[in-house]
């Protein structure tokens, strides 16, 4: 994950230092753990919701 953050930093010329890269990578990893809950069996065949949620 740190490498991915480093690449974004270079691509956008963010100039992130090592401490920032470490912190952001850790945040991204924590978020990914949370998002693993989303991969559930009961969405088989379920279409994603389009952006205009209430006009669907």
């Amino acid at each position, binding site marked *: *994950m740190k490498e*991915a*953050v480093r690449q*974004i*930093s270079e691509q*956008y*010329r*963010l*100039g*992130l230092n090592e401490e*920032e890269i470490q*912190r*952001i*990578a850790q*945040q*991204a990893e*924590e*978020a*990914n*753990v*949370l*998002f693993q*809950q*989303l*991969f*559930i069996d*009961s*969405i088989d065949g*379920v*279409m*994603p*919701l389009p*952006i*205009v*949620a*209430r*006009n669907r």
Partner: protein
Amino acid sequence: MTEKDLEGMTIAELAPQIRSKKLSPVELTELCLKRIGRLNPLLVAYTTVTEDLARAQAQAAESQIGRGDYLGPLHGMPISVKENICIQGVRTTAGSKTLAEWVPDHDATIVERIKKAGAVVLGKTNMHEWAAGGTTINPFYGTTRNPWDTSRVAAGSSGGSGAAVAASLCLASLGTDNGGSVRNPASVCGVVGLKPTFGRLSHFGGVDGSGGYSTDHFGILSKTVSDCSVVLQAIAGYDPKDPRCADEPVPDYAKFIGAPAKGLKIGLIENYFDDLMVRDVRTAFDRALDQLQALGAEVETVTIPHMELMSPVWACITRSENASAHVPYLKTRPRDYSPGLLSQIVSSMLIPAGTYMTAQRVRRLICDEFDEALSQVDVLLTPTSPMAAPTIEECKQGFVIADGKQISLRDTGVNFRSMGTAPFNVTGLPALSVCCGFTANGLPIGLQIVGRAFGEGTVLQVANAYEAATEWKHKRPSLS
């Protein structure tokens, strides 16, 4: 009229006086400006006060009404607008350093509509940096303080709007709500906050990057439910300038004000909110439920099987969408962000596309489950914020102690304070917060009423019936 009179007055009470020319819009506007001048240094509710614009609009309203051309209940009424909603010719920062000098050349559609209704625009209200948090502790424009206890936050991100309405520094305010940013400030400031259905209001003129494209909503903060209905009437409706705006007919919301709650079915969501409320909030919520039952409403329990996935769905969708809007600013001015927000945005750029799409699929499941629940009941009832306003210091340290437990105010997903509100940014359902009591130390508590898609009328009906049966709307913070 004195400042003390103004504290107790609402749009519904002032409008007839303006219409009958007993009260001058100029006098009312000057009173608000005087009050802002006195209290804003303490509360930091406004970032920009548009004195010249307000005076010109008030003068124009007075002349127009003098000629017998009365436009309706917002004519001559002083209103404020959040920092991330465009007003032509007025600096619009979104609470950021990045946009510190940006002056839009256009009005947001909802601003255009309140102007057309004759409202007087008093200025821009403070907000959390880029609306990316719920404290309105803003490193660039100051910390908005809660009028009920100035050692506490006014929540956020529309904290300035909540404080301004509660302190009578305006009669109503326009805000934005991506996870509870209208309803939480309303809850902790003891005022009414409405996030209408996604698509009910045009979002044209909202600043990109201050919410997810499919989760952010414009909303209204006001002193009473009736006032909220007046503002909603003026700003609701289709706008071809926003592709997200729905071409749905706008009902006459006044018909829902004063209508009884008797016979309406109220749903309680099983196993979600019970563990969220601190003791004072639980007590107030239970009393509000009893009150609505005493008014003749029936209560049922409903089930949302995938409710526990609300936090990752909201966080994944809103962060992915929001991060994409920041790319131009990241490329040019990355160090204009506060360090914490820069980290959050960059980490959000690492969410895989497949995860985002999966979140959108789970979102459909959840929306279908809510639609099913709302086919059984007319509205859902929840607490707005699970606790009253924390202190500024508690927000800075990142946790509070409540009921003997340490509660984190930081979270990887939905922040604890937004657990009650963010579900309705995921579903897009209309949700309103109305005051339902106070803690033992005098802090307001909010009750959230949620309706069917485009069912704002029923939400207003239940909220107004509850409000009319209680005394909470008469309580005002002491700011002498």
